[in-house]
């Protein structure tokens, strides 16, 4: 990064933070601080929902997923449109009619205090940790690549979000998110444009996609019923659908973005905006990774994309000689692959199909050897330090720094930070409002003036900012970052969703039954997660159904006991 990049980066981040503070100056009452002014249009709501969900992890890690595994990850989102329709039909009208600050208030009205507190507590644990991942994700990658100090990067990112969220509350999040998401889209489009423009002159976009297809990067939909496969049509539609239902429908960081919209119509349209654009957005980000894979068939990529870690281990570790040997193998295989790909495309153009087939098979064999060298390198690095073994999160940033022009580099790095900050701001305002409304005002200090709760809310928002920063400082993540985020959600979300679905659809089930069912189901999901090897998406379905089934069973037992004691 040069001076221009740093100017773009700092100007953008400080500008958006200052704008958020300025636009929402003078928020003096609790309602407008926690709920906003309530006149947001569907576009603001839709973009706010999108920006809260799509954090820096989405834009930094997803292209790496596309590079490594192709388009298959898009199946994760197949259930989202269905889930958003269910929320629009069932959840949203109830939340709006009761005019609640948080969705856990509804559970208090429908069931009892303990169920409300349990759900709020599960949300606070899950989202509090999630907020840490939200800032850890870009910080670990960008600090490693740029040579910045990790702790300073985490603290700086976290503080920017804390400043305007504490200052302006819910509206500050909404008004800044529309600019942040605009900047993110501009950055991603610029990256895609430059990527396609930098393909060799004799390789068209159609050629690039053909190459990607023969390397299995366009295999987007897998209809296999195998539960152990991480991403299939079924796990995406059912598991992903339940994940989306719980995330968009019961997580206050999302519900807070749309239930206080200008009207029911505006809120619904905001949700439908996401239902229509979520899959195409994820597809395009993954496609960027797929095209990056093709681009790197004609440019030599590093054998391991976290080059800082590779260099450190190659220089100091006992495996240095082996790492260098693997790099040589990788480069040789890659050079052969590039040569065979050119031969293959030329033979296809001239209509010499037998020669094309031979060249393609040789290219695939060379790719297989290159991939083996890459896998061995990962294993060697993982053996020394497990959390460094996955370099997928470094693929896109490596491409950006090596191949994009200055100015656009600054824009994209700013976009990553903007995504982290906008997502964290949405989470912080939800954590602050849930702590204030569901715990503090409900249990600790009741019936005080709103001015008191406004001050408390600001303090709680700041406190969660500090907790998230502290968690990010001590985080040790070995999974690809976007998967770690989804796994965390899949373990905690389903039970909360089960409680909400019981509330909506099983009217005869009471608070005590659902409370004990939720605790048992949460423990069961955790044990299953630790013991089974099925795709994590399935826990969303299992946890939810288990919670509802247990609630019904406990309610039947309780009803029988009540009727026998009466008789």
């Amino acid at each position, binding site marked *: 990064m040069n001076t221009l990049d740093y100017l773009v980066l700092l100007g953008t981040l400080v500008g958006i933070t200052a704008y958020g503070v300025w636009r929402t100056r003078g928020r003096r009452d609790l309602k407008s601080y926690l709920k906003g002014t309530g006149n947001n249009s569907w576009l603001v709501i839709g973009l706010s929902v999108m920006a809260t969900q799509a954090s820096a992890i989405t834009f930094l890690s997803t292209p790496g997923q596309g590079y490594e595994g192709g*388009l298959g990850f*898009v199946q994760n989102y*197949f259930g989202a*449109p*269905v889930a*958003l*329709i269910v929320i*629009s*039909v*069932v959840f949203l*009208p109830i939340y709006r009619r009761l005019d609640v600050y948080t969705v856990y208030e509804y559970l208090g009205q429908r069931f009892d205090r303990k169920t409300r507190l349990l759900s709020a507590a599960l949300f606070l644990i899950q989202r509090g940790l999630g907020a840490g991942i939200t800032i850890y994700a870009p910080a670990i990658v960008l600090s490693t690549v740029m040579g910045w100090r990790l702790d300073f990067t985490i603290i700086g990112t976290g503080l920017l979000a804390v400043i305007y969220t504490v200052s302006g509350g819910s509206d500050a999040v909404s008004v800044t998110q529309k600019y942040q998401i605009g900047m993110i889209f501009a950055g991603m489009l610029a990256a895609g444009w430059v990527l396609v423009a930098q393909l060799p002159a004799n390789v068209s976009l*159609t050629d690039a*996609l*053909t190459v*990607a*297809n023969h390397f299995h990067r*366009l*295999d*987007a*939909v897998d209809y296999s019923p195998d539960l152990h496969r991480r991403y299939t*049509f079924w796990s995406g539609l059912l598991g992903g659908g339940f994940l989306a239902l719980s995330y968009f429908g019961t997580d206050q960081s999302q519900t807070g973005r749309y239930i206080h919209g200008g009207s*029911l119509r505006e809120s*619904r349209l905001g949700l*439908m905006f996401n*239902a*229509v654009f979520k*899959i*195409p957005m994820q*597809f395009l980000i993954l496609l960027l990774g797929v095209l990056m894979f093709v681009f790197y068939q004609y440019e030599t990529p590093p054998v391991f994309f976290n080059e800082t870690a590779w260099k450190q281990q190659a220089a100091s570790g006992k495996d240095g000689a082996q790492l260098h040997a693997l790099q040589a193998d990788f480069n040789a295989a890659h050079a052969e692959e590039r040569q065979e790909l050119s031969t293959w495309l030329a033979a296809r153009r001239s209509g010499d199909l037998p020669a094309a087939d031979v060249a393609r098979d040789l290219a695939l064999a060379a790719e297989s050897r290159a991939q083996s060298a890459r896998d061995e390198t990962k294993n060697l690095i993982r053996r020394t330090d497990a959390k460094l073994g996955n370099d997928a999160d470094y693929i896109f940033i490596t491409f950006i720094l090596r191949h994009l022009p200055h100015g656009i580099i600054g824009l994209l790095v700013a976009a990553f930070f903007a995504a982290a900050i906008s997502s964290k701001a949405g989470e912080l305002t939800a954590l602050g409002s849930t702590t204030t409304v569901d715990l503090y005002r409900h249990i600790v200090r009741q019936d005080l003036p709103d001015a008191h709760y406004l001050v408390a809310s600001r303090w709680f928002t700041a406190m969660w900012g500090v907790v998230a920063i502290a968690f990010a400082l001590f985080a040790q993540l070995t999974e690809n970052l976007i998967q770690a985020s989804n796994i965390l959600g899949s373990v905690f979300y389903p039970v909360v969703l089960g409680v909400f679905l019981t509330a909506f659809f099983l009217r005869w089930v009471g608070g005590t039954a659902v409370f004990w069912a939720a605790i048992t189901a949460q423990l069961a999901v955790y044990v299953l997660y630790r013991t089974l090897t099925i795709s994590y998406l399935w826990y969303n379905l299992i946890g939810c159904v288990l919670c509802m089934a247990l609630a019904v069973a406990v309610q039947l037992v309780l009803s029988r006991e009540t009727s026998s004691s009466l008789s």
Partner: protein
Amino acid sequence: MSFHDHPTSPSPATGLPGFATWRSVYLVVLGFLALWVVLLTLLPRLFP
């Protein structure tokens, strides 16, 4: 006004406010989903 005086038949989804009005919007959204699934399934065949 009696039940039979309603100018249009009542929504079959009683208790789901606005469902009848929004039904076409939801169908369009589901149509987009189906379109994407079909397109993504066929994508490898488009670049043989």
